[in-house]
């Protein structure tokens, strides 16, 4: 059931955020849940292990599938961003060539809101880049290079 998989993804995100030192209140705000549910999640309750396993499988898919599937399940851009950023285990290095014409297509396409235009050139925040390569694929001038590090 999609709802259970979403719970699994939220569980994984909550655990990861707790590891990073966030309070239950902060985690509840990020995932738009009430605090008691967060508390249950962190204690491994109210959740089937099977959902968590599927959620884990999803986080290990290629970044584009992870992102698109998460969005399809969660149906909320803000929450998708939080889940993908928190559960993404890979890091990326981004380079924009001078051939960039600043058309802003990548800005519009980036579901992670990681791209801004400055002086008619795209700038990608590698902290937020999830490596989905949607921007690289659609860039009309092939100016984007994203490498896993």
């Amino acid at each position, binding site marked *: 059931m999609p709802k259970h998989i979403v719970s699994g993804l939220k569980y994984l995100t909550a655990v990861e955020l707790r590891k990073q030192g966030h309070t239950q209140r902060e985690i509840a705000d990020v995932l738009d849940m009430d605090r008691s549910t967060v508390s249950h999640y962190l204690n491994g309750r109210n959740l089937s292990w099977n959902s968590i396993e599927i959620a884990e499988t999803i986080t290990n898919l290629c970044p584009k599938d992870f992102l698109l599937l998460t969005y399809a399940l969660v149906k909320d851009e803000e929450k998708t961003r939080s889940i993908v950023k928190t559960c993404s285990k890979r890091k990326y290095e981004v380079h924009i060539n001078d051939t960039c014409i600043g058309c802003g297509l990548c800005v519009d396409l980036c579901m992670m809101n990681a791209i801004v235009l400055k002086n*008619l050139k795209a700038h990608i925040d590698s902290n937020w880049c999830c490596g989905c390569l949607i921007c690289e694929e659609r860039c009309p001038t092939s100016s984007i290079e994203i490498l896993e590090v």
Partner: protein
Amino acid sequence: MIANTKEVKGKDFDVKRSAEEKRELIYKDDICVGCGICENICPVEAIELGSIGAIVRTEADESKICVDEDKCVLCGMCSVGCPVDALDLKIDDVSIKTMDSYPSYISSAEIDNETCIHCKACEIACPREAITIARELPDRSKLVTGEIEVDKDTCVYCGACEEMCPADAIRVDQDIDSRDIEIDEDKCVYCLVCKKVCPVDAIRAACRTCSYGEYDIDPADAEIKGESFIDDELCVRCGWCEEICPVDAATVKKAFKGELNIDQDKCTTCGACIDVCPCDVLSFHQASKPGEIGEKVEKDETFCIYCGACENVCPVEAIDVKRTDIDYTPTKSKSWKNKLESLKT
């Protein structure tokens, strides 16, 4: 998925993309000169120039350019490259032509209202009908001075004065029951024609300007007031107004410098270039005396904006337009700089 939408209104169209920001490319066909710079500058080959010669000469119901909305990425290069503002890219309803981060041509046309004598020469000369001179002429009555009077007892109401009056200042009612004569002193120019034509000497009139000079006429009353307007959208900065202005009130700054060369041997005198030129630069030779043979197509390069529309439309490649210098505001983007520089030929 992010996709563009296209809205066609007659020969005009808008291409839009709405997401984080709203990007809209607006095309106005009546402003387009068909130069093809947009087609050259487009980085994704989304623009196709139509058969400009046929469209212009047959007034065909067809846009001069076509933008493929599936290829267009709404970068705005065509809008910056367009020398006449037929294309305009707006981001969140603000034209990129007003944004500092985007380069733009340095060109302008201005009429100094203080110097302008509102003679309308520029309005008549402008090949794009972009200039309007709104002028207010002085009261005629303040430019002449005199006296006029009718002796109604002597007047026979023949109407000769009314017919002769060049200023349309006299009204005569010849009806037997309501005979009357009226002279409108605001219209009268004291030419004394009525006085001279009157068969019974009923009109007494004198022109003071003739006998005493202009001492009781205030020169301030003779001033022509007015204002000049240049429609920035229609203006192509060709320089006709600057050249024709008798008092140097008009100044035009062009964005391109270049050369226009016509190969008279290749020219077949089809006249397509003449029809397409937005600046009235080209013309067929007008013989000033019998038997005189001039060049096939003559040019007055003073007014050329080096847009290249004539070169594109020429079926026999007899025209060569060179752009040697392009004046634009600086940009930090290398790709934009390269693209603008590529317009030099």
